[in-house]
């Protein structure tokens, strides 16, 4: 089985974001960038499937600026085989990314595309589902467990209230949730090996996809700041404060 794994370069998980004073967006200058944490889980899952013998080739793809190549190298160091960078400095919305990925799928004919359920920058949670719709493929979102079952893929999903299992006819789309696996750290030898792996560069124009945004940002502002309250001495004081506030 051949797997395609899209990865996104985002502000690092641990960075506290700052809104620009002119309210045009978030300040990305000199900020640490990393692979979207959910995408690390996708790459890890594909690599584990390859180690288990169910997957023969892992292709990783990223839509972003030149530096997104570093994100692809990280995925290659984790165990992916080759990369595709669709280079653009534009801010591409999930719909545009899904359209580009649909073209990559047409070229590469993977049996499975594994994506992160959301990117931690814009928190949209859309790209995988949109790609599934554009391809008319079935989708298993928020995956907790994957199991190959003949020409089907059983996906156990994290849903409100518990877990749900669906069976998808391959080819299919999976988006991953937090508990699917714990991504590995790439070893130094693998990081060195990854430098020799192939990354092909493309552009949205070469794919003939219109990525012009549908949404115009009006403002980006700081959320209302919550003021810290008071420290209470003991449980009895806490209970009396809560009673006074009418909370219990």
């Amino acid at each position: 089985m051949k797997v395609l794994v899209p990865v996104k370069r985002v502000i690092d998980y641990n960075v506290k974001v700052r809104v620009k004073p002119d309210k045009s967006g978030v300040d990305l200058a000199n900020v640490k960038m990393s692979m979207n944490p959910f995408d690390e889980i996708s790459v890890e899952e594909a690599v584990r499937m390859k180690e288990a013998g169910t997957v023969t080739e892992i292709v990783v793809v990223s839509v972003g600026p030149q530096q997104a190549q570093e994100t692809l190298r990280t995925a290659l160091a984790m165990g992916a085989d080759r990369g595709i960078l669709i280079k653009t400095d534009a801010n591409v919305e999930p719909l545009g990314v899904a359209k580009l990925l649909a073209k990559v799928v047409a070229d590469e004919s993977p049996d499975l595309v594994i994506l992160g359920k959301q990117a931690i920058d814009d928190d949209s949670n859309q790209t995988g589902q949109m790609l599934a719709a554009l391809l008319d493929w079935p989708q298993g979102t928020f995956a907790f467990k994957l199991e190959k079952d003949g020409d089907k893929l059983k996906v156990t999903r994290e849903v409100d209230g518990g877990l749900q299992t669906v069976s998808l006819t391959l080819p299919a789309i999976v988006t991953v949730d937090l508990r699917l696996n714990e991504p590995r750290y790439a070893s130094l030898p693998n990081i060195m090996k990854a430098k020799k792996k192939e990354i092909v560069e493309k552009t949205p124009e070469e794919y003939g996809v219109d990525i012009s945004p549908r949404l115009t940002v009006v403002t980006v502002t700081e959320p209302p700041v919550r003021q810290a309250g008071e420290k209470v001495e003991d449980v009895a004081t806490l209970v009396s404060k809560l009673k006074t506030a009418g909370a219990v």
Partner: protein
Amino acid sequence: MAVLVIAEHHHGALSDATHKVVTAAAKFGGDVDILVAGEHAGDVAPAAAKVSGVRKVLKAEGESLRKQTAESMEALVVPMMANYDAVFIAASTTGKNIAPRIAAKLDVMQLSEIVDVVDSSTFTRPIYAGNAIMTVKSSDAKKIITVRGTAFEAAGNDGSASVEDVAAPEGPFKSEFVSEEMVKSDRPELTGAKRVVSGGRALGSADEFNRLIVPLADKLGAAVGASRAAVDAGYAPNDYQVGQTGKIVAPELYIAIGISGAIQHLAGMKDSKIIVAINKDEEAPIFQVSDYGLVADLFNAVPELTEAL
């Protein structure tokens, strides 16, 4: 203008989330219809017809729709969109699964988890785990929107809409429901609860989580939540997770126990009315958002609190 609200319902009961989505849809403007699809749609439709301000309820039942898979819901909703300007659906796992599929089919860029409707093309939504709030204008002819329920009041129940049947789409689809394991609980549903008691990693084990958090929640009639660390460690089920990538809650009272307060957790609960934090580390970031902070060993403080209430 007309808006299609897709109802959220569980075990034959209309979810309160639907009432909140109707409020958001009413703010968008035009006629508001509710689509009730899936198993028990017949039981849910009368409740949907009572939601204030609703023009009509569309009821779709059938084997293919039973579990509201994204594939079957796409087949049901996309043809209906000839008559509607927008889809509004709760940002639940069901809504998040279905909405982008409909949006892509209609060549629309979806707006996820909106917290305000400014006008019929301008919406506000949090980004970066709620550390920035973005207002965007959509140039698409139709709008596909998921709604963060905690940002809207629930619509009332003084409506009397008519109920119409809609044919379920013909299957089979390339995705089939196999099974589900639902957590059984008599407690209120986490996202709609008036009170929430959440436990973190400091509890140390699932046994301690159940021994300390659960009785306090029961005493308060509260829902139980957890930090990601507690869920990852196996102290609590997955769907207890409060935070950026889990549940977003805004109860009257939120009690965080042994939770340090990572930004991803704060993203899920900082709109709560009163926040109480119990943590032995007085430097824990949770105290920066809490109204009442108690620096104490939770293993002593929590039983004492449960006893005192």
